[in-house]
């Protein structure tokens, strides 16, 4: 890694990319992607010291946690999920007002006896005796699920990792309930799943995030401060905590 120059990671597709580029453009830091949606390198006009990389949001979170990139736009949920100590490895500079999603616990609507996490604790505690296996939770949010369940004293369950279409897992018989993100709840409802009344694990939105583990030289800190001041809404001096 060079001593000067910053790497900014931007989500590589969809609304997250559009909104990120809009916010930077409004701050007169227009992000260019010369090769179009198939290229993974970009630049900001008049800011040659900033290298832009287009990456999937989950990968941005992981790279920020390990310090392979300096600055990134990604969901708070993905930072929490990227590693157990993910949030300690980064600085959340500013929420960006888009990419809102709630990570929630949802059970089949037919489970009329289960309305709160305490009900789930009861069900989990004798599930194995009744069914000869653990209660299964489908999710891609392994760390968030473990932490939330542990807070409610639920230990007797297994996580089934699910890459996509988590909401279909109960009907497919691969899990009994799910932890997933939802913005309107309509996908959950369409799959006859109901969010528990205290089943909100976290409210996430896209953030501008700094990596604590990146190699922050005085020059790079100065470049960071300059970029953040152009972007606005961030008090100066944040680089002192890096």
């Amino acid at each position, binding site marked *: 890694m060079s001593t000067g120059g910053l790497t900014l990671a931007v989500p590589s597709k969809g609304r997250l990319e559009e909104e990120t580029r809009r916010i930077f453009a409004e701050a007169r830091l227009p992000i260019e992607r010369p090769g179009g949606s198939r290229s993974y390198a970009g630049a900001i006009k008049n800011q040659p010291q900033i290298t832009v990389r287009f990456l999937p949001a989950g990968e941005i979170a992981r790279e920020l946690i390990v310090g392979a990139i300096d600055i990134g736009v990604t969901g708070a949920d993905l930072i929490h999920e990227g590693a157990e100590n993910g949030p300690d490895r980064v600085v959340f500079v500013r929420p960006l007002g888009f990419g809102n999603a709630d990570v929630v616990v949802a059970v089949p609507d037919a489970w009329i006896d289960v309305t709160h996490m305490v009900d789930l604790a009861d069900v989990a505690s004798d599930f194995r005796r009744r069914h000869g296996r653990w209660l299964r939770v489908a999710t891609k949010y392994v760390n968030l699920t473990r932490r939330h369940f542990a807070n409610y004293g639920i230990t007797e369950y297994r996580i089934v990792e699910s890459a996509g279409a988590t909401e279909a897992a109960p009907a497919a*018989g691969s899990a009994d309930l799910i932890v997933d993100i939802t913005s309107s709840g309509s996908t959950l409802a369409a799959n006859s799943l109901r969010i528990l009344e205290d089943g909100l694990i976290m409210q996430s939105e896209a953030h501008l995030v700094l990596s604590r583990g990146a190699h922050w030289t005085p020059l790079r800190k100065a470049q960071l401060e300059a970029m953040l001041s152009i972007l606005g809404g961030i008090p100066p001096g944040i680089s002192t905590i890096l």
Partner: protein
Amino acid sequence: MKTPSERRAALIRLVESKTVTRVTPPLLLPAAPYLDLAGEEFGRGLLLTTANDGRDYCLRPDFTLPIAVSYLDEGLLDVPAAYTYLGTIFRQSENGPEEFDQAGLELLGQPDAGQALDQVLTFARWALAIYGVTAPSIRLGGVGLFEAFLAAADISPAWQARIRARFGHPEAMQRLVERLSRPPEKTGGAAPDGRETVIEIVTDAMLSSGLSLVGSREPEEIADRYLEKQTLAAERIPDRMVRLLREYLEVSDTAPRALDRIASLTASYGIDIEEPLLEVRNHAAALAALSPKAEVIFDASFSPRLDYYTGIVFEMTGEDGAILASGGEYDRLLDRLGAPQPVTASGCALWIDRLEAEAASR
């Protein structure tokens, strides 16, 4: 004992003494039994790797499980066994993967469970003495005592199960006790006609959402728990029992005082748990005799998080509060692993790196 290597030699002599068998389970173990036994909470501490066939393996995270599994696999159920171990275990911690030196004793299928526990306590005490720890803080907990207390109290079996499931988890237990202490909630709406109707409603809901009626929770199970919940809301635990439960869980004092307090507390509520209390008293007394300088605390709410612990549990801590030894009775372990008959089990694990640090700081 002077140097680290002398202490190490003494520890090896202890785990290789004549009355025990030292065993060394493989470093690489299938992960499934751990996850099956202890669930996700323990699973997050495993260092995992995946085999070509997709099965998960972990670096040995403890010795108890592989020792119990091989005891079972070798068909030794009726044979009293005493296993010791000394070696590395691997865990995920806050600071990333870590390896620790652990030693311990497992007594399986012993005819006299009480004697076995005293043997475990003696082993732990000798191991600590090797490292110059002669006055540890010892915390005792009574899982069996709490179960006997619940069974004897005027608390319905459905509530007993809910309370038992939260033992050893202070936050969850506190939330439950608070919930029990509140005035009864009005359950919304009129209760449905009866079990058959509720089953029908649940079945319809499951079918219309494409859920299988078998394999996961079944309509009868959901309906029964739904009705039970309504009954529980209506048939609350008597206030005096909630008060008793709260007072019981708060007891934490030097062992004789704590046990006297529990005796007088339960007696004043007309509950008889003299027999299990006497058992705890005897072990506490044995412990006091073993380590006269140790401070022995009985903490009524103390229990490891794993639900296979049964009788008395303990942990011994050093000067800086680090746990040096922990263990107890876990008769449900072999049952969980599929033993066809009850098998008594007790044991302890020692954190050798911490003991060495204690010794070095003296």
